[in-house]
């Protein structure tokens, strides 16, 4: 098994009892993970077959790590025929950037970085009063797409994440301003994806559309995919803000009245440090993380994302402007 990224240990478990459906005893039933994997690979290959300049959004978070793993499997034993794009908010977890650079080097990939900090330094973007940089990613992303003339942009978005994402197509056409118009989406029938677009337009592609958070974790476990350490319980200096534990850093936390303490925490998502919260956790292994998620009464974004709480339709509004 040399196709996976950062694969740890031996080959994934493919013993026969995993690939049969106990409810029908058919030898031809696929497990839900095999079905989701096959569908995602089909989507990667469709894009490779139909587009000139695809790119994979890669943040070093678990969804983009799974996307890259699937892309590596889809084209094995050849190289992935796409480059990567990281929209760097400038407020990164150091472990994630280290992981990103290691994976890129390991597989001989090409990484483009669109830097929010750079836009702020040039005076094009202004820091928000709340210090959150997630909404600021949209302009560097859309300009990078135009500059490199990317015609297909893979994102790790899943429909289970959020109600606006539940309405998203697998192939989502964006105009020259990268805008999403939910009322004008193309109907998407069978597995016949329509990727036709005019010059200047592009298509956002979501191979993990039908995966849930738990699917992603179970797949990471089955495929023995290595993750940045912040996904597992560790001691970290954090402080409380708006009901979440945030990592202290020179990005602007803690402020007066907020005090740092050392806690045993882990992250469920990876994003901008200013708005990605940690959860108290003792889960140091994949098994423990999966058990924790299965028992959680909070969604991934509800538990850890401040920016989605800004309004009832915060995600839809950002997506309309070109966010992924």
């Amino acid at each position, binding site marked *: *098994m*040399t*196709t996976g990224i950062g694969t740890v240990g031996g*080959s994934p478990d493919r013993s026969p009892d*995993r690939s049969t459906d106990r*409810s*029908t005893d058919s030898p*031809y*039933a*696929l*497990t*839900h993970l095999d*079905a989701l*994997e*096959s569908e995602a*690979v*089909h989507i990667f*290959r*469709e894009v*490779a*077959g139909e587009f000139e300049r695809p790119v994979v959004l890669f943040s070093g978070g678990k969804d983009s790590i799974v996307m890259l793993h699937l892309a590596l*499997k889809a*084209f*094995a*034993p*050849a190289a992935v025929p796409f480059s990567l794009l990281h929209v760097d908010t400038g407020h990164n977890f150091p472990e994630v950037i280290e992981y990103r650079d290691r994976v890129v080097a390991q597989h001989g990939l090409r990484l483009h970085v669109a830097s929010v900090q750079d836009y702020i330094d040039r005076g094009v973007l202004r820091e928000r009063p709340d210090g959150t940089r997630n909404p600021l990613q949209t302009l560097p992303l859309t300009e990078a797409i135009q500059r490199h003339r990317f015609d297909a942009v893979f994102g790790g978005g899943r429909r289970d994440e959020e*109600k*606006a994402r*539940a*309405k998203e197509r697998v192939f989502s*056409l964006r105009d020259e301003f990268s805008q999403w118009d*939910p*009322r004008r989406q193309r*109907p998407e*029938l*069978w*597995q*016949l994806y*329509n990727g*036709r677009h005019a010059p200047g337009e592009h298509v956002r592609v979501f191979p993990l*559309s*039908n995966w*849930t958070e*738990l699917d992603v974790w*179970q797949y990471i476990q089955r495929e023995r995919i290595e993750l940045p350490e912040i996904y597992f319980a560790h001691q970290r200096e954090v402080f*409380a803000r708006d009901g*979440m534990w945030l990592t202290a850093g020179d990005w602007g936390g803690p402020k007066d009245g907020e005090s740092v303490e050392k806690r045993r925490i882990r992250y469920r998502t990876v994003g901008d440090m200013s708005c990605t919260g940690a959860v*108290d*956790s003792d889960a140091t292994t994949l098994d423990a993380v999966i*058990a*924790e998620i*299965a*028992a*959680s*009464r*909070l969604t991934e974004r*509800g*538990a850890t994302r401040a920016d989605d709480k800004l309004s009832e*339709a915060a995600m*839809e509004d950002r997506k309309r402007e070109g966010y992924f």
Partner: protein
Amino acid sequence: MNGSTEQPTDRQTEQLSATTLLRFATAGSVDDGKSTLVGRLLHDSKSVLADQLEAVEHASRSRGQEAPDLALLTDGLRAEREQGITIDVAYRYFATPRRRFILADTPGHVQYTRNMVTGASTAELTVILVDARNGVVEQTRRHAAIAALLRVPHVVLAVNKMDLVDYREPVFAAIAEEFTAYASELGVPEITAIPISALAGDNVVDASAHMDWYGGPTVLEHLETVPVSHDLATCHARLPVQYVIRPQTADHPDYRGYAGQIAAGTFRVGESVTVLPSGRTSRIAGIDLLGEPVDVAWTPQSVTLLLEDDIDVSRGDLVVPSADAPATTQDVEATVCHVADTPLAVGARVLLKHTTRTVKAIVKEIPSRLTLDDLSQHPAPGQLVANDIGRVRVRTAEPLALDSYADSRRTGSFLLIDPADGTTLAAGMAGEFFAAAEAAPAGDDEGWDF
């Protein structure tokens, strides 16, 4: 601030074991309780988490509603929430110990027929809701017709609001009988009727205490046990070539693999295969299942085929067993559902996307348009407009290896695309109209035989 975890219940722990996936769709009119049924399924299978429910409660309160409006769980767009209607398909995910589910929650109004078709195209089961007080109405017949047209293998008739008819068996029996007769005539292969009250929770997840005359499964039990279509693995094998993998590296100087998702059937190493439309033949030298060699692979696995001979194979070609090859044709006769706002007229120049192949095509004829209300056929309408379902004859610039949609939803379906702006115009299903029992009379070979 914390993960808000509790000790996992048995159900949640069991969810972690290997399970199969069922894709299903719901259909129902505006007021027959579809949102309540979906909400009940999600809620009772513990798929609505605390923060989602809190958001719904908050939104409901801010609109002056007393009880949480479960429709807000599925109506995710601003416009939908403002108007209180479902405009577009939403996909929902939930799981039980036995199975994982992908639910396409589709709008019920006839104006959004195209979105129902979208949801039904990948569904293996459709739940059609009726209000027990109203019985089978026009909209029910439309939904049954679309399920039959799209050849959804399993149909569930959920007779809802049984609490409002005093849970009386004769009410349910009459509706079930009328629907089953109608749907069978359309060729729906399997119909399961279940009396429910989505509001009260009768027979949705838990068996009803009010209807001891009913001995069948609850909606969820049926969803958990209905067979997913493994029979696809035993029908005509088809592999549309998506992409040619040629590493050209020191480790793999001569590797030339034909990647694709098996659309139907089973392929084995050593088997003799034909590549269409060229008709060249070879033998399968190897099958790679995402980096691992296997001896046999089946639908819907994504694989890479290696052939013994260096023949010309590229994206858009179809690999089939030499003993079971479909005919190729440039004259496609099909049923289409028109999904665009601009009409489709006779003479239109379009693109036709079939599996991984896109070819130029001309709409030669539109012989009829279907009236969904009574299934009558309106002859020669001249054009189809949004949400119309009709027959078309299309001439393609290159030959296609097209199966009948009745044999394969995957290799019998196609899109018509506007070459000017890429708009998806129509969803096509090759071959005869419905899966109806009335086969063509023996000896009649006037039909199309691809």
